[in-house]
């Protein structure tokens, strides 16, 4: 089971941004969503999740505000900012290029975007 530290440098940021691009979410929700969507392949511990969230917020890509959770508990919700959306687009593009390039090196048949 790969933990987040095994993820490529910067990939965690990409995953979080992508997850938040759908709807505002709290930290727990983000972790859960990534785990579910990746079919339990990616489990993100709080030890890397929260520093990443803080880092993204300090960079101005996401914004936090307090709201109430599904079960009416006070929770901090993160949502993507306009700068975050631009950053996400840029990172997705980079990712596509990179994974296509790696695929080529590994001899997979992939279509190079662009």
């Amino acid at each position: 089971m790969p933990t987040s530290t095994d993820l490529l440098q910067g990939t965690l940021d990409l995953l979080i941004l992508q997850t938040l691009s759908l709807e505002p979410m709290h930290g727990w929700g983000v972790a859960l969503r990534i785990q579910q969507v990746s079919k339990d392949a990616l489990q993100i511990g709080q030890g890397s999740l929260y520093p990443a969230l803080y880092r993204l917020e300090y960079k101005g890509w996401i914004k936090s505000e307090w709201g109430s959770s599904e079960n009416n508990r006070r929770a901090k919700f993160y949502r993507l900012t306009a700068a975050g959306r631009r950053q996400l687009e840029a990172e997705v593009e980079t990712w596509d290029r990179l994974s296509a390039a790696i695929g080529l090196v590994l001899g997979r048949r992939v279509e190079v975007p662009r």
Partner: protein
Amino acid sequence: MIGEWLTRVRFLFAWKRRGEMDEELRFHLEQSIALKVAEGMSPAEARRVAMVEFGGVEATREECERQRPGWWMAGVLRDVRYAARGILAHRWFSAAIVVTLALGIGLNTMVFTLVNVVLFKPVPVPGGAQLVSVMNYNHARSDQSVPMSLPDFEQYRAQSTVFDFLEGATRESGVLVEKSNAPQRYSMTRATAGIFAMVQAKAVLGRGFLPSDVEPGAAPVMVIGYGVWKDRYSSSAGVIGRQVNVNGQPATIVGVMPEGFRFPENSDLWMPLVPTPELAKRDNRALWGYGMLKRGATLRAADAELNGIAGRLAAQFPEDKDLYANVLTFHQRFNGGKIRVVFLLMLAAVGFVLLIACADVANMMLSRSLSREREMSIRAALGAGRWRIVRQLLIESVVLSTMGGVLGLGLAASGVHWFDLQTKQIRPYWIEFSTDFTVFGYFAALCILSGVLFGIAPALRSSRPDLMGVLNDGARGSGRRSGGWLSATLVVFQFAVTLVLLTGAGIFVRSLMNSLSTNAFIPAAKLTTARVDLPEKRYKDADARVKYFDELLPELRAIPGVEHAAIASDAPGLGAGSQPVELEHVVVANLAQRPRAAILAVSPGYFETIHMPILSGRGFGEMDGAAHREAAVVTRDGANMLWPGQDAVGKRLRLLDDDGKPGEWITVVGISGNMLQEAQEDVPKPLMFLPYRQQGWGNMTLIVESDVDPLASMRKAAAKIDAELPLSEPRRLDAAIQQQVWFLSLFGKIFTGFALIAMLMAAVGLYSVIAHATSSRTQEIGVRIALGATVGNILLLMMRRGLWQIGAGLAIGVAGVVPMARVAGTVGVSGQVTEIFLVAALLLAMVGVFACWLPARRAALLDPVKAIRCE
């Protein structure tokens, strides 16, 4: 983008509250438990598993905190606060460090300000960074500042593409003559029409030049400087349109330039350069070129382009053979050579002073670090990492050096001001000693670097304390020697560098004293000199010129209080022209091998006026110099050079002009004492005096010996014979000689100052090391005295290390003196290096021994009873 930045800046100041972070993490944990319960675990089990999965909260907290941009600044601020507390707690210790650093950093900032202005900062005119000097380069004579001829200049201007402006200007002097004002000589330039527009200068009154002013046959106009306007015309607006007479030609004043404007070279008067047949000659090289490069054009490109043009001209005209174009910045052109070397020498000297200061401070910190070992051990025991301790100590050093630096800024400012005053007379007007951001950047870098430099060794040493040893031991580890080698090395280094600086300063001072003590027989303080330049237009031939001086001389002698008066082509000690000579009965194959003699044309009474003894033969009488009575007097050294081993009186010689054409035979009638006429000359030429009637020159110096100031009467006497002729450069001879040696005198003072400061610092450094050593061995000394050690024993014990360090420092210093003396030689300063070196070494050794004797004596005179109980 800006939004992102604002967010980041906001977070610099507002960091997240801890409670929020905790609540968020707690929420996460609760959700995790809830999920596990929902999956069927018992609440207690779910809680346990969740906690295990969750891991340590504290690490996450710290990690989150670290994401904040600038999170480390809080730690640094804490360290700065802590350092400030420590500095205040040890007030005297800190004050000593701050003062030492203030001297070091202040001197460096001062000298860098000067170096920056003299070597790097653009000329302070609009577009100064693009301003260049254009001249010819004669490779054959390796003279890179040959003025240009007007036809060449016009070709350069017409064919070049890299300049927005290319202007030419002469350097001459202009005598202003009007009915209502006394005639006066100013420095004047005749320049092409764009000279003002090039540097965007506008007249404060009237106008600058128009293109029509330089057309042949244009009405002659003149623009005057602010100083001339203020002093000569008392700032009257009516000066515009005024008719004046310049060098015997009429001209109309059309404009006044702003205050402080003297472009290109300390000019007071400007006239348009109207082409004349004289200027059209290709061998009349009178123009200094100034160019404003187009935006984006480089100096190198300009040089290449002009050299292309110069190559074509050289092929076409024989007068331009061997001439290349040479484009340089103002700094390269006018501040090259000696000036450049001496400023860099100054920078090197203060660099060493700063190193000495840092070594001093490092030594003080080292001795303090011994007494701080306990503090450091406790910090390390509480878990501070090594890097953390080093950082804290370095921050302390940088805080200290910044305090020193700020204090030093005041010192630097007054130093620059002093230098500015000292050089006002001799520097070009466009050198303005002011600071800019480069200087400030240098200063800031200096503060931080010197802090790190003196802090690093003590910090590294303190950061790995011997934990158990120190905590178990008492406060002090007596007799511990580790780290001693470091402070010893620093002291040795200080003494070596100080020796080099002292010797360097000594060479300058010695050289200055040599220059001032030459010609000691001349009563320079009683001699007043002034220059007269007879205009060729009115004094057409030698007879007219001789007649003028013949009439002037009795008038000068008649001034009340005047003991002697004479006329000479140059004042004593202030240089002379030279010509090749042919000795009778001595055959020399070609002109180049002829001896050259320095020649002074003098009037009767000259030798009496300057109190020069005639050793054999006679001086000049009234008849000497008339046709067929050609005569000469040579100095004793001159006679020995021309006729070694023979009696020169009665010998004959001829002067040759530059084409080798000989003049009349001249008989040597007398031999005078020796005189040094050319102050800075490696191989002195034989010096020869000729009667002024024989030469008939028009540019002469009046020399008057008097106890009272005779200048006003001299002016009156001159005006009686020719009212349109001014006396220029009036001054006392001693002042003139002083001014001639300004270079030695100014830089001698500066280097002596640097060397003395260095010596003081080195002495203080040694003192503090020995004092610390004695105070940490008080008990031991008490025991030794109690056991019967004599005062001499204790003195020797305490001083031994210091003496050894002084000796080693002096020995190493010798190695530095040799290259330094060579560099000093390149700026024309040399002297009895060995002798000066010995004096410097002796002085330094005495100061050093005194510095270790003081604390050692205190130790030797300790009361043993008190010393043993000390603690």
